[in-house]
């Protein structure tokens, strides 16, 4: 589009040399009615199922209910990323994807680390543990 022409010839030549001559105008994909509708319908389904499961009382195993709800949430986040945020490995020459991967790594460390450490603090360092260890009862 027009912005490609606006860029210097030199820059264009570099891009074409890198095999990216067919680059989008601003390095972004704006999607289509079809992709937005696909994303929307998938989101509605992926939202409706966990709400229906939990509002209906859930499965017999609480763990199974929790796993289903969290699993569907992860899938829905991916659907939003792809269909609404247009994540792909091409936009901005892959840098948005790199930033996302970096963020997810930090996010997993922060979440898993906090929950793990604090869970162990709770179970191992609560005052009543000392009472049990000392044989005083709780």
């Amino acid at each position, binding site marked *: 589009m027009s*912005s490609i022409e*606006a*860029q*210097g010839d*030199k*820059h264009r030549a570099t891009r074409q040399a890198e095999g990216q001559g067919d680059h989008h105008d*601003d*390095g*972004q994909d*704006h*999607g*289509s*009615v079809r992709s*937005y*509708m696909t*994303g*929307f319908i998938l*989101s*509605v389904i992926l*939202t409706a199922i*966990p*709400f229906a499961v*939990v*509002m209906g009382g*859930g499965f017999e195993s*609480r763990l199974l*209910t*929790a796993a289903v*709800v*969290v699993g569907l*949430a992860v899938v*829905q*986040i991916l659907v*939003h*990323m792809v269909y*609404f*945020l247009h994540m792909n490995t091409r*936009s*901005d020459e892959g*840098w*948005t994807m790199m*930033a*996302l991967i*970096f*963020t997810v790594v*930090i*996010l997993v460390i*922060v*979440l898993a680390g*906090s*929950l793990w450490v*604090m869970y162990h603090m709770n179970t191992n360092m609560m005052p009543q543990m000392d009472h049990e260890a000392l044989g005083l009862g709780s």
Partner: protein
Amino acid sequence: MSTVSQTPPGDFWEVEPHHHHEGASTSIGFWVYLMSDCLMFAILFAVFGVLGTSYAAGPGPKDLFDLELVALNTAFLLLSSITYGFAMLAMVKGSRNGTLAWLAVTLVFGLSFLAVELYEFNHLIHLGAGPQRSAFLSSFFALVGTHGLHVAFGCLWLVTLMIQVGQRGLIDANRRRLSCLSMFWHFLDVIWIGVFTFVYLLGMI
């Protein structure tokens, strides 16, 4: 020695500054902001994960949450996401009125979401389940409130852009701003998926 210094520097490296057209790096810059925002939410989620079961003998999720209200809010946010998508598509087609109309619909859904959330907060505080009641409620209000604040600022931004588009039309700068708000808006929807899953649904199981 002398043969080296005779070569003009321009043959080795670019002497002209590198030209990008204005705003070429805005989308990646805004994405980096969103990722940092994502980390902030990750920490709030971690806090909720750690403190979410410390009720201090106060009310728990099952005493407080109304899933029908949450489902309604989720629907509002999801619908606002698709209507913002349609606004972007109208923008790509160059339809100023179409863009404005879809932005207005998005704003209505965004404000409806905020109204329901404020109603819920107000209801909880009246029940005596305000943020000072227990660690669970402190972390709940911090997490959900931060998301709500983001939506509120998103609505403010949306109004600003509607005025801008109304006055100047779909110029390049406005297209760029609309793309940024698009990312922001869809990002908030992604955060909301985390909120309704980990705070509301898991709390009610």
